[in-house]
């Protein structure tokens, strides 16, 4: 369970001087009148892992859509590698090196796992030949522990394998920035642990990662920095320990009453009724 402890800062963590790979400035997205994302600004430095957490409906997946290009911002700018990408289509952004996964997994159901991953490698804008793409795909399948399931069809997979396929397909694109939308949701603890390890490996191979997650435990184990969203706004940003002990974050996640109870009881005696907060124990505000 070592992954539950905060990640040591020296491991591939980027210093403040590393240039930002991704920058969002005052980004707002309204669906109808309601803002799903409201005046959001943040930056991701090259080589780091940024975790984004927040309760249901906080606008996390909309952020992925805004970065990946599936959703156009109502206002504000999205910059990637120094270039304004706000008006580019998803496939153009994919060619620049932005890869994403989907919260509701989107496999090519009629294709087998290997073919799914080959598609990822074929269209990354690097003009790979089919043979090269197959080699890349086989390599990725090994890395993501899907090699034994290479012949299964996209609709014959378990939830965990579906999530892994999403990651494998994105990895085959050999991206600079990987956006992971709740790839650990619905997994049992051992599978979560495997996913955390995989994300770390991916990051160590030089890929910048943005992880969106519900499970705080998982995000804490993998992120260099954590950003917390609530009602489309950023309510906290910083190191995992700081953010998870932040009073506003606890209130947003568990309600004000629970936050008050926590303040009053100083001990770490299994107060957390929700598993989402389980790893927050012992870091009292």
């Amino acid at each position, binding site marked *: 369970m070592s992954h539950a402890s905060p990640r040591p800062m020296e491991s591939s963590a980027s210093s403040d001087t590393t240039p930002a790979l991704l920058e969002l400035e005052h980004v707002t997205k309204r669906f109808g009148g309601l803002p799903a994302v409201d005046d959001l600004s943040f930056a991701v430095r090259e080589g780091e892992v940024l975790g984004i957490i927040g309760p249901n409906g906080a606008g996390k997946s909309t952020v992925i859509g805004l970065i*990946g*290009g*599936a959703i156009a911002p109502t206002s504000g700018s999205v910059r990637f590698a120094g270039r304004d990408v706000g008006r580019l*289509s*998803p*496939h153009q952004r*994919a*060619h620049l090196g932005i*890869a*994403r996964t*989907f919260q509701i997994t*989107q*496999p*090519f*159901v*009629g*294709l087998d796992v*290997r073919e799914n991953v*080959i*598609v*990822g490698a*074929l*269209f*990354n*804008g690097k003009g790979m030949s*089919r043979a090269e793409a*197959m080699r890349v795909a*086989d390599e990725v*399948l*090994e890395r993501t522990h899907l*090699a*034994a399931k*290479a*012949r299964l069809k*996209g609709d014959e997979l378990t939830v965990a394998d579906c999530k892994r396929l999403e990651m494998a*397909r*994105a990895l085959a*694109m050999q991206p600079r920035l990987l956006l992971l939308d709740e790839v650990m949701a619905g997994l049992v603890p051992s599978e979560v642990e495997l996913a955390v390890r995989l994300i770390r490996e991916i990051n160590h191979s030089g890929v910048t990662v943005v992880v969106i997650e519900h499970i705080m435990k998982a995000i804490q184990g993998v992120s260099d920095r954590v950003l917390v969203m609530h009602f489309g706004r950023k309510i906290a940003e910083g190191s995992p320990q700081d953010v998870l002990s932040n009073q506003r974050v606890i209130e947003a996640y568990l309600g004000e009453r629970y936050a008050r109870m926590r303040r009053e009881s100083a001990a770490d005696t299994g107060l957390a009724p929700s598993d989402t907060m389980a790893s927050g124990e012992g870091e009292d505000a």
Partner: protein
Amino acid sequence: MASKSSSEETLVKTATSARRESREWLWSLIAGVVILAVIGLVPLSGDQASLSLWTFIVMYCVLAQSWNFIGGFAGYAAFGNVVFFGIGAYAVALVMQANGSFWMGLLAGVVVAALFALLLGLPVLRLRGHYFAIATLGVAEAVGQFIQSKNVGATAGEISLTPPNLSYQLTNTLFFYGFLALSLLTLVATVWLSRSRFGYALVAIRENERAAESLGIATYWYKVGAFVLSAAPTAIAGGLFAYWQLSFDPTGEGGAFDVNISVAMVLMTFLGGAGTILGPILGAIIIEYLSQYTAIAYPGIHGPLLGALIILVTIFLPQGLIRVVKELVRSPAGVKQSYQTRFREGVRRVARFTASNGI
């Protein structure tokens, strides 16, 4: 520890067998060439009625094969592909009426049909599902009606051409082989497509357009490309049809813009197997043969019989005959089985999936 290493061994074995590239395309190509070669023997019989029947069959092979590019590979249910057939037919008619050669007419037909597919595709390929189907259906009807009402080529568009200066028999044989060569060419194009980057993109679009776009596929342009690719052989077939039939109408039964031709392309491709190499050829042979046979044998009820066939196909074989064959011969990866067991297992699988489709 021993059990772990053995499980790793099987894992490596499965991985290698997955790495071995599927030869399905090669078998499909060989089977396709053999089928077309056997059909190529028909003129030897000297029977004009069966030559005419098989010319129609091969013509429908080409039409279904072409529809397969947009409808089968890209998964976009184009219900108006007859418009390219009609354009090909009228291009030949108009060029020949202006004393141009038949070949110039064919060329003009291909170019105009491809351009038309491009210009039509740009707006309609922004639509999805039913909306796309309805839009394409409407366009085909509109073009046919336009030709009729504007007297294109002749009064009410009713074309009549001078026959080539050859014997009746030789002419018919030449057109038969013309369609056959076109079908062979389309077969080769399909095999190439199924192994190309273009083909991978189309299949990805069919299976999940959203995911395809996020993986770097310029979905819109690939769809337009598939539409143009589907238009070109259809137009050539239309041109051959025009000079073979000599006289034809724009609309109505047997017309160059007859909506039944569009329906036939879709039905044949689905019966055989959409997105497969051989499916459209098999579907065209079966449906056109049955259609002509029942029209002669059971003149009163041939329509209802075909209708019943359509219902049965959509209920029990939505994935086509090729899927049935594949399920029959598929062997589970890495397991050695006798042919008998494999066949028994195959029959069981087919029974299961047809039943699950039916219920």
